[in-house]
């Protein structure tokens, strides 16, 4: 395993987000969860670009595929104290997003949080321009309501991902 794959295994274990997935939605959750983790400050060396479903990293897909057949453990590794602190702050948000909600699937929630954060973090729209965020998301084919956008930005601020 490469160092990056070891980090991926450590982080997903800590957050209880499985790596070995066959369903598209589950793979999407992994992509967006790692994006949120990195935005919280834990640099795992995954570089994200914008794709049809929001921020996406093909290296992460590759690593996840590779690790499907890996059973070697990570017992000799641990997460250092700085990253431990960052992860504990973001874990609350990840746990909330993993909860099923009526009319809002887990995958859709992860996609919304990651996409809105990506748009703001890359400077394509200002954090307080909720209307503009909505326009941009609509242009990208994501029909989020203004209420959803406001709630998402509120949560991202609450967990320190936006200021």
């Amino acid at each position, binding site marked *: 395993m490469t160092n990056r794959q070891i980090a991926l295994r450590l982080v997903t274990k800590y957050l209880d987000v499985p790596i070995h997935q066959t369903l598209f939605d589950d793979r999407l959750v992994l992509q967006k969860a790692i994006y949120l983790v990195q935005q919280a400050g834990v640099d795992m060396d995954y570089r994200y670009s914008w*794709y049809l479903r929001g921020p996406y990293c093909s290296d992460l897909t590759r690593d996840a595929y590779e690790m499907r057949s890996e059973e070697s453990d990570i017992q000799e590794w641990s997460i250092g104290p700085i990253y431990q602190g960052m992860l504990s702050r973001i874990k609350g948000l990840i746990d909330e997003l993993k909860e099923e909600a009526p009319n809002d699937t887990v995958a859709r929630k992860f996609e919304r949080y990651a996409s809105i954060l990506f748009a703001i973090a890359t400077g394509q729209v200002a954090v307080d321009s909720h209307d503009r965020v909505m326009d941009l998301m609509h242009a990208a084919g994501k029909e989020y309501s203004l209420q959803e956008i406001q709630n998402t930005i509120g949560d991202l601020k609450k967990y320190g991902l936006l200021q």
Partner: protein
Amino acid sequence: MSRIVIDGVHGAISPNDEEWDVIRSAPFQRLRHLKQLQLAYLVYPNATHTRFAHSLGVFHIMCRILAIVKNSNALNLDKEEEGNLRFAALLHDIGHYPYSHLLEGVDSVRLTEQIIYPGASVRTFERRDGLEPYPDHEDIGTDILRSQQELVSIFGADRAQRIGAYFSGKAIASQQLTKLIHSSLDMDRLDYLVRDSQATGVPYGAVDIDYLLNHIQVGSDGMIGISYKALPAAEHVLLARSFMFRTVCQHKTVYGFEEMTRQLLRRLRDRMTGSEPTYNLPRDGDEVREMVEGDRLLSFTDSFVDTIIAQASSDKDPLVSALASGILRRRPPVLLYEQRMFEEHQHAKRDKELFLMRCSKCIPTLAQKYRMEVGAFLVCTLKPIGFEKRSSSMGKDEAVAAAAEEETSEIIRVFEKNANKPVDIVDIPYSILHKVSAYSYYTNRLYVVLPASSDCDVKKMKNDVAEVFAGVG
């Protein structure tokens, strides 16, 4: 006033006034001092062409594509966006480091001793002493656009950010066109294949750009692809990339020198103690950003690394000086063993693990026997060379299952006869890619760096290595 630049690959290139101002700016002129093919000139003497010429070439191809697709209703492209896309193509390499990936990738370099001695019982995943890793060149590019005064006065902060998002693949608007900067059929690749081929004299990269551009189509849903008539030309691009990488970038001597440089830069960057010279290498990502945001950007060119190599050639550490003077005096490392495969990913992975295991076994013994440091041995597992993004790491069945994923947006798409929507090239049964896309070329190598004064019996050492790799050592 119209300006014309004559380029050896594309002929006349015509930037507008605003683009001309950017080309004239000092941050863009810096690209004249970054070689496109890094250390390949040590083998191919004419491979000294620069990122400056390449950037103009990519800009030219973008202009041609925009002229073809801009009237499409499905793309809904306005003037401002068109201008931003032209700038994104022109500026896509503005953030490159000296010798590009050799310095940029310093954080991911594994020193030989780290490979063969896996370390203490419990290790932590953490930042290196709280230091930031070197940012990638696309992030650095956006930093340059936002901080270098000459460019800020042209773009302003907001537009600079938007253009940066286009060339780093982060732009949410104009996705289809943005992907044409970095994808399988991208303008970056179309230019470098032809340009590198021309400069090195290796003919495999001579792809048919004109035919491809003349057969670009936009689907009813805004998807961009090529007509089925251009399928052979698209296949040629994907195969040409593979041939050029194997012949030029992964040439035994080119790669050997580049690995020496990576190991040297990593060893110097990691010193950090103050008692040993680091020759002004930025200590972490924060210092890189500081450099590129100020006047030091203009001297952050290949010469920056050349100077480090020259100074380090008389370093007190014998390994550091052997690496540096080997590069400086063009003494390539000796190739002790090479393993080549054309395989699906899972098979190659097993062979790579076996290779690393055997290296771990033989290097300490060889080091002792020939009185060398283990760091003089370079263990290289080269980046696999695949044909198409999808399935480069998966078996064929897995790749088909993954077809619905986001990743497919970077694949070459083909409009079959009378079709309104394109299909992925790997899904066309009569395409070569349909058959070979799950395969990649894999190469593993073991080199040794010998100081000029060495009296080592290389032939004997190669025999020793051969015995280990034959499984009898």
